[in-house]
């Protein structure tokens, strides 16, 4: 298995028999929703579409997997979404075949997709890789595999001696507790998880918060002691457990 990181998405490409590009959490239409919450900005939908298409050109995959939350509004579809989702999918279809694992913001997405482009929301396998959005308990078929998911929009705050030097979307790589699949797992440490950061520039949850109060079955079952933080370009940014442990003595 060969892994390549693409910070411009952000996205990650996994190569086994074929080259598969993974993206997550596009949240088209978010600007329309944000109006309700007091933010009045023009949609950046076209920029997003362009960025994704450029990413495909750069990564040269054979297939693209979008790990869910392609649209934003629930329930229903705003006019902005209607227009932009059409635009997104037609742009992508021109350049690459793709499949979608629907997320919690995706009810209604089937209107825009062909049946062969949709996968089960609880998860399915592609090659040896499990794929799902990440808001559900994973399908038992995924046990023992490397699972890629979105949903968590991980963002890390890197500090140096003086303060926060950088806030960046990040990947979380680790192992999950097998109890998520079955009451009585015969061994631990077989199922691995890679949380993919969000493609949408406006979303993000600090991992410092996510793993203190996990909001999904997957984040709850992640083994923190062995989990690692990776920046969008594949740089190792530390292990999760040290990052969360504040009460260590700080040097100097």
């Amino acid at each position: 298995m060969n892994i390549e990181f693409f910070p411009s998405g952000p996205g990650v490409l996994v190569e086994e028999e074929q080259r598969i590009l993974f993206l997550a959490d596009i949240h088209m239409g978010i600007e329309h929703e944000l109006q309700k919450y007091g933010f009045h900005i023009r949609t950046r939908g076209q920029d997003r579409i362009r960025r994704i298409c450029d990413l495909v050109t750069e990564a040269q995959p054979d297939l693209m997997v979008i790990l869910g939350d392609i649209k934003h509004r629930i329930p229903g579809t705003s006019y902005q979404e209607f227009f932009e989702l059409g635009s997104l999918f037609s742009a992508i279809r021109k350049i690459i075949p793709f499949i979608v694992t629907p997320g919690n913001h995706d009810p209604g997405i089937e209107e825009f997709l062909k049946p062969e482009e949709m996968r089960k929301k609880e998860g399915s396998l592609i090659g040896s890789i499990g794929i799902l959005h990440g808001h559900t308990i994973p399908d038992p078929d995924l046990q023992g595999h490397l699972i890629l998911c979105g949903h968590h929009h991980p963002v890390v705050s890197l500090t140096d001696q003086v303060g926060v030097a950088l806030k960046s979307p990040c990947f979380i790589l680790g192992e999950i507790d097998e109890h998520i699949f079955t009451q009585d797992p015969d061994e631990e440490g077989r199922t691995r998880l890679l949380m993919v950061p969000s493609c949408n520039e406006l979303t993000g949850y600090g991992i410092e918060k996510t793993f203190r109060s996990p909001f999904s079955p997957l984040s709850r079952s992640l083994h923190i002691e062995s989990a690692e933080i990776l920046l969008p370009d594949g740089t190792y940014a530390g292990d999760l457990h040290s990052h969360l442990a504040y009460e260590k003595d700080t040097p100097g």
Partner: protein
Amino acid sequence: MEHMQEISTPILPMKKTHQVDTRILDVIRDRGFSELSEVQQQAIPKILQGDHLLLIAPTGTGKTESAMIPVLSGMLATEGKGFTTLYITPLRALNRDILRRMEWWCQNLGLTSGVRHGDTSQAERRKQVLHPPDLLVTTPETVQALFMGKRLREHLRSVRYVIVDEIHDLAGTKRGAQLVIALERLVRYAGEFQRIGLSATVGNPEEIAGFLAGERPCSIVEVPVAKYLDIKVEITGEKFDSQVNAVRRHTKKGPSTLIFVNTRSTAESLGHALMRDGDVDVHHGSLSREVRIEAEDRFKRGEIKTLICTSSMELGIDIGHVEHVIQFGSPREVSRLVQRIGRAGHQIGKVSKGTIITCGFDDLCESLVIASRARQGAVEDVIPSYQAGDVIGNQIAAIAVEYGELSIDDIFSIISKSSVGIRDVETLEAIIGQLTEHYLIRRDGNRIITTSRARRYLSGNLSMIPDERKFPVYDIVTRRTVGTLDESFIITSLHTGAVFIARGQLWRVLDLEEGKVTVEPARNADGELPSWEGEQIPVPYEIAREVGRLRRTREFERYTEDQASIAFATGFLDLVQKNHGIIPTDQILTIEYSEEGVVLNVCAGHQTNEAIGRVLSILLSARFGSTIGLELDAYRILLRVPREISVADVRDILTSLDPDHIRGILELAMKRTSLFKWKLVQISKKFGAIDPDADYERLSLHRLADLLSHPQIQEETYRELFTRYMDVSHAIGIMRGIHAGEIQVVTSPPSMIGGAALFSSSRDRIPPPTADQAVISALKTRLDRQEVLLACMNCRKWKSKTVVARVPDQPVCGNCGARLIAALKPYETELYSIANKKTKNQEEKAIEQKLIRNANMVLSSGKKAIIILSAKGVGPETASRILATYTNGDALMREILKAERNFVKTHRFWQ
């Protein structure tokens, strides 16, 4: 009316057609008044002539009457429905006394008056629409609202006079800019009305006159303030008790004393301490209106002798006779001191007595300088906000709502006529473009059309005062609200894990949810929130320079006769020198170490130090790739730097800085600072991009600044920062002085001056300029914190677990003294036991060899090897490869990052 005596002689000779109406003279005579004050004598004829006029005089010299008498006279000569005169004053000066006076005048002359502001009842407002009073007393915000109603707009057509009271308070702010644009909008309804501005003393009267009247000719009547002032400066001890006693010594003497303090908390604690004296009360903005009015009345009636107040009292609220004004702590600005002391006396011709009670060396010197300048009448300039994009945007939206639709040419002609408006159509078009992005207005060819959002936006943005929301802080451990955090912190610094200090305690942020910040107590050090103290007044450049000169010349006797002050000041300077400190002056800039970082002692005032401090932080963060913390006050700049940065490094950057590059560096790098981000958000609100009650939980806050990268918003943010926060010209001047040798840069041992707690500071953090450098900086910290197991490969009987930061440059076995120490990850403890077994199999021997290789690296390369070996996935082979590159510093870090990235690529998790 205490401040007017009987008129015995006729009013000065003037043009026949321009005389005060006899009815007014009758009224005055009936009340038993005599002479006109100096300002009245000068002003009244000019107003009667029809001049626009700026009237500058201290409080209590009869300014209001100077305007009202001739205006009322004119009002008697006019007929018709609608408002004839608008009297505009800030809300906090709008008190019952002004209203009573207006009512009194109007009633006696058969005119009607009314007041309209945010709290005016619906019933009253409706009445004003149906029966518009001849004289309307109102606030700048409400003036904006007047344009929003159809019938109110009709009533504006008859306006002949506009009086802007406390114009010095408005002119330097965006509120003022907004108001003068509104006056141009008014001209379209009423024609050219007469403009009268009432002002306290300012350093630049012509500019303020221009502010009021634009291109129109405007006369100025000014009554100098200096002859009315008697100011003394005293020094007390550091302890609160001695300060209270110093105050008490004065309050016991006089019949009525007003004590000005700089913060509300000081007002409360001083009030509490003096409360036992009985006749004391407190007055500040956080108290309710009733409580404040009660305090004012009691003081006026003589029931209390002492009133402790904040700037809430600065404006012309009439509280009767004040014998003495005490300023507690430096007033920071001459105009502030003059206005406050001007409250004393309060009778025409009487001298105003004031005392500044200071504590500490900086406080004393600053006060001496300010008092001296006050006596010379050297009051600061008030600089209007010219071409402020958000003000103009706000007014365009207001105009759109007012007219429904209007041509761009018409809008341009309104705005460009004001003193603060833009001068070219291109900028107007750009601002219009910005507003359409936020759906505030639509554009159709050459016309601007209002949208459904606009009216709502306007109701929430009648005022240009930036609102700062407060978010409650909730401790999940005790389940209680423990304080509030300002919106500025939420926008710029909030993330889970952020540590801050509140009420002397350290807290760690967990989350923002349901409008509350949840926290838990934290133990780690280093929690400082960025702040730029919006309410704190910056000390002007000239004052700080003069303080510097005073430190150098030590001519304290020229500034005061108070022997205690002179002794304290000279004693302090002697003590600094005795401790080998070098005294920073106007000609000497010292750099020293303090506990917190590197301190530059430079006497240049807040805004200049802000510019210098930021340039240095930016350059340091770029050169060393680390986050830099910045704090400053008028006399010092504190740089929080990582260990690697020394005083010499800072000195180096300072002396090699080309003054001509300062502006460019700031323009390029300001975006990374918290101050910039915060201002950006505030200005975005005025452009309609963000609602006042926007829900910050709905997006990733640290991306908010990126979102708002619109050109007009950015431009206004830069403009405001460069005009109000950073004084680049003087910073350039200081740098030029350094290069020319006029200002020496000297390294000093830690001194009392540099180590003094920062005196009303501004705080910020500047991150490294690129993500790349940030990652390297974070890597260094991560490696420092890495746990490492040191294990002796000589005696095989010693191991020690520690963190990399604590490892010495050449570790030594605690048992046998050897230096053949292996550096292991803590989970590799077992390998040490394996390596030390008496009998080993093939595999176990290999492990031993690996550890010996490891230890040999540590033997030859010391701590550097240990640092490398503590990186993720780096074992002896990789480590020796990295050591063989012979890189150091950032280059070494890059090698380590490469190795770690490689580890990721070959991770076992990929199977």
